[in-house]
């Protein structure tokens, strides 16, 4: 065995305590490394361990808790632990999906940060043999009044558009929030859904000895070195200096890489494959070798390089984009090379699998790293950090929150506010129709793409309401999962599984760790009850600047299956004369509601509770109504409550609604604006309305007819009506005005 520290001695500087600290080792982690190696690491080895042990790559604060999540169901083909999760769509088709954050880079350099976030998540999906067919994104920006917000929105949206549009993958959904809690730490969470054949899925475990390790894609440069380490620390006033650690993306190369990889995957050449994401060559080789129980010897002299005189350290840590690592089956090099040459991509054999169980890295004739693979891949510390979870606040009674002067006036103000204003300015910059299978476009509850060449559909959405999670992490996270589930039901899809993107602040603080633990518990409860497991995910911690943390944001992305895309619903009211029915329990829950935030000027009390058994019943009923053709429009009630849901349906369909006066026991503003969970608004033809109400009652679900689809305005007895044109102007106006008039 070669002693790396000896042969690398001429080029490797002394490992000083300062150098160790710069590499992000905390507490006794470096002592642990010395103990594991039994010697001092070389500089290259120090770099390798620093990224492998970073929070971003090792999940060292979160792993313990993530292991408690439900990850199985009869439809799950692959749960967490691979590049992405896989679920069964039937007929030999499967959906491959995951959501991942690119928060830190997007704050520092919004265009490239967001663009490479999209690129990275797509590679996670096509590396498994799936063609990406839908992208989504969950974005959180600071308050509109903050001086950086406009610049960040502009850059992030343009970056996502640049990358997604050029690669030709439709962006079919997402969500965007504005809140001062994100002023100095925006969140950019990108989700990708791919489509594969169940019998042609690819994994990353390197199996077999003496097989060629092949590098394909773009050349390696000095960009993104220590990106993973950056993503594992909080920000301070000097964060802008980290700009050089942000990677630069090239969607054209990604598009070629998708086509070349899928073309090669149609042959029998690939043994295993893995994208080079965070920590690039280091983590891809370590993970592939570890999963397959082999060693890998690399010769860095063969790595395609964009810059001259790159060191081993730089090559092993570079996060240059659009690169993949493959292990080929014997005798397939020429076939593979021809495909990559056709697509004008680099192709280089840079190593070989071995039976040594070691990752040996050679460069310029010297061994610069020689590490036992299992240690490298599995020795990262795992922390059970101290945590404390506050008692959830007491509920706020509806009558404690003052009513507005005018119900429809309040509606108009809410619909034109940054919280609810139309996101059209954003999603119109994304090509959401390319691939020719988008059957429900963005702007509703969930986007739907057809499984190409069939009449099945994949529905996808993402959601979380951070103010609920902040007030009560367990209930808030439960709500996030459930709202996704509801969004899928609302288009007529059978919900299958979720991906979770856990965005939190510094886990070394017990109250933050408590938010994380609470959220995991809430997600787990909802997933278990709804049979809606977690199949992939990502954790982004240290989202804080100068001690100010983001609201806890466990963003949930979800996928469902539409058996027949000719039997779906969307939110637009369609038929004059239809009756509007609300299904679900009404409690007038104003605590933590948007109404409370906007009109009481504060957020108080417990968030609305979720009743998971009611959710199951309501979801099942809604899907049945859609498939029977009973429902001409469906929308779930979420932010802003019932009246906002109706207004959104009216705007989407271009037909108004005449609402019957509320005559129940609640204060009427609580009935119209309460954010009670588990509710759907459904439009039904008049002669079927009673039947629908009765069917809900048989399931012990309250349902009532609340109005009629008609005209070009929202009308409510005793109030001046609200013309749709006026409401539309308000709703559509805010975001373009904000973005295009910086001198307001």
């Amino acid at each position: 065995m070669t002693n790396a520290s000896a042969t690398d001695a001429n080029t490797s500087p002394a490992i000083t305590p300062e150098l160790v600290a710069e590499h992000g080792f905390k507490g006794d982690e470096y002592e642990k490394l010395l103990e594991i190696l039994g010697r001092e690491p070389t500089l290259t080895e120090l770099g390798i361990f620093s990224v492998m042990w970073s929070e971003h790559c090792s999940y060292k604060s979160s792993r313990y808790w993530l292991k408690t999540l439900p990850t199985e169901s009869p439809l799950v083909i692959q749960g967490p632990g691979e590049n992405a999760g896989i679920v069964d769509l039937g007929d030999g088709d499967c959906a491959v999906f995951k959501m991942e954050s690119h928060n830190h880079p997007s704050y520092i350099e919004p265009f490239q940060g967001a663009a490479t976030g999209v690129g990275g998540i797509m590679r996670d999906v096509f590396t498994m043999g799936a063609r990406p067919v839908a992208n989504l994104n969950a974005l959180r920006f600071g308050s509109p009044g903050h001086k950086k917000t406009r610049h960040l929105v502009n850059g992030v949206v343009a970056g996502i558009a640049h990358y997604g549009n050029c690669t030709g993958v439709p962006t079919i959904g997402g969500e965007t929030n504005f809140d001062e809690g994100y002023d100095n730490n925006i969140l950019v969470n990108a989700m990708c859904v791919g489509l594969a054949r169940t019998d042609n899925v690819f994994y990353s475990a390197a199996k077999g000895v003496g097989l060629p390790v092949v590098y394909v894609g773009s050349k390696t440069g000095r960009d993104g070195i220590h990106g993973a380490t950056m993503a594992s620390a909080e920000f301070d006033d000097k964060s802008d200096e980290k700009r050089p650690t942000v990677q630069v993306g090239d969607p054209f190369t990604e598009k070629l890489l998708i086509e070349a990889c899928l073309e090669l995957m149609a042959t029998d050449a690939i043994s295993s494959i893995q994208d080079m994401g965070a920590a690039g060559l280091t983590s891809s080789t370590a993970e592939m070798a570890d999963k397959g129980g082999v060693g890998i010897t690399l010769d860095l002299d063969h790595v395609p390089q964009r810059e001259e005189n790159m060191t081993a350290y730089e090559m092993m840590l570079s996060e240059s984009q659009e690169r993949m690592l493959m292990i080929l089956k014997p005798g397939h090099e020429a076939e593979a090379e021809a495909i990559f040459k056709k697509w004008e991509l680099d192709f280089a054999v840079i190593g070989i699998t071995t039976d040594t169980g070691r990752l040996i890295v050679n460069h310029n004739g010297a061994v610069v790293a020689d590490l036992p693979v299992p240690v490298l891949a599995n020795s990262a510390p795992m922390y059970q950090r101290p945590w404390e979870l506050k008692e959830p606040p007491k509920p706020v009674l509806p009558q404690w929150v003052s009513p507005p002067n005018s119900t429809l006036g309040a509606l108009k103000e809410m619909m034109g506010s940054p919280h609810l204003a139309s996101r059209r300015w954003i999603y119109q910059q994304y090509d959401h129709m390319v691939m020719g299978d988008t059957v429900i476009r963005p702007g509703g509850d969930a986007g739907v793409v057809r499984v190409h060449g069939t009449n099945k559909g994949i529905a996808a959405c993402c959601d979380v309401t951070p103010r609920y999670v902040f007030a009560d992490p367990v209930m808030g996270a439960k709500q996030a999962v459930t709202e996704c589930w509801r969004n899928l039901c609302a288009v007529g899809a059978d919900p299958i599984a979720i991906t979770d993107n856990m965005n939190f602040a510094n886990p070394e603080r017990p109250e933050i760790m408590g938010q994380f633990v609470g959220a995991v518990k809430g997600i787990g409860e909802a997933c278990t009850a709804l049979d809606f497991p977690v199949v992939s995910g990502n954790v982004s911690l240290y989202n804080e600047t100068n001690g100010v943390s983001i609201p806890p944001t466990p963003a949930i992305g979800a996928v469902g299956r539409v058996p027949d895309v000719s039997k779906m619903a969307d939110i637009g009211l369609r038929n004059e004369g239809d009756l509007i029915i609300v299904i679900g329990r009404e409690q007038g829950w104003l605590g933590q509601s948007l109404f409370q935030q906007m009109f009481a000027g504060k957020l108080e009390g417990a968030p609305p509770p979720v009743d998971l058994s009611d959710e199951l019943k309501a979801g099942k009923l809604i899907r049945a109504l859609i498939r029977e053709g009973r429902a001409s429009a469906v929308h779930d009630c979420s932010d802003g409550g019932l009246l906002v849901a109706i207004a959104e349906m009216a705007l989407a369909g271009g037909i108004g609604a005449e609402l019957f006066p509320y005559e129940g026991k609640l204060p009427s503003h609580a009935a119209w604006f309460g954010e009670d969970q588990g509710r759907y608004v459904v439009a039904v033809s008049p002669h079927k309305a009673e039947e629908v109400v009765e069917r809900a009652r048989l399931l012990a679900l309250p349902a009532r007819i609340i109005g009629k689809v008609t005209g070009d305005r929202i009308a409510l007895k005793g109030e001046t009506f609200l013309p749709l044109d006026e409401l539309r102007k308000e709703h559509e106006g805010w975001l373009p005005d904000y973005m295009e008039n910086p001198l307001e």
Partner: protein
Amino acid sequence: MIRASVIVFPGSNCDRDIKVAIERISGFPVKMVWHGDASVPASDFIVLPGGFSYGDYLRCGAMAAHSPIMRDVIAKAKAGTPVLGVCNGFQVLCEAGLLPGVLMRNRSLKFICRDVHLRVDNDQSYFTRAYRKGQVIRVPIAHAEGNYFADDETLDRLEGEGRIVLRYSDEDGDASNAANPNGSQRNIAGISDATGRIVGMMPHPERLYENALGGTDGRRVFESAVVNFAEAMG
């Protein structure tokens, strides 16, 4: 039998979409032709699809216009084979000199993906003959560089020769400034060459050719080509 060929450049991304639309409408298989090939197989018409050929890192369509296959596309076009360029394909046709003018950045400087209304101003071209002159149709656009520009003399000539095939309009067919999504001169969405056999358009007819996608107004672009062929045979 309809023989259509779709040229695939590296970075094309609407090639499959338009292939599928033509196959569904015509009932015949479409040939995909790689940009590096020397010649296009004998075709009743050739399509240059949407996308980002060569990444569009130079001017949009500029690199593609000089790719090996384009020499034969240009030769065949000049010899009378009809050619349809959609979105990036329109940009390529302009860069290749088969159509006049250029497509500049949208006046909003943003990528725009949405349905727009178009007024059919020429129902004689090879790809718009199945429409009626003056008909208003709804078809999506998806581009960052669709702002058509040519000098006044060229525009007057296009106008005079009836070569402005499609214009952005409102629902009632008024080609107003408000209905112009990208700043194109004279609301131009599509033009043809003098013979009406080479047509370039920014909107994507292949994205609204069946009800499942939300509409069928784009369908007649392809039916036009099929109808023409039937007439030529008949």
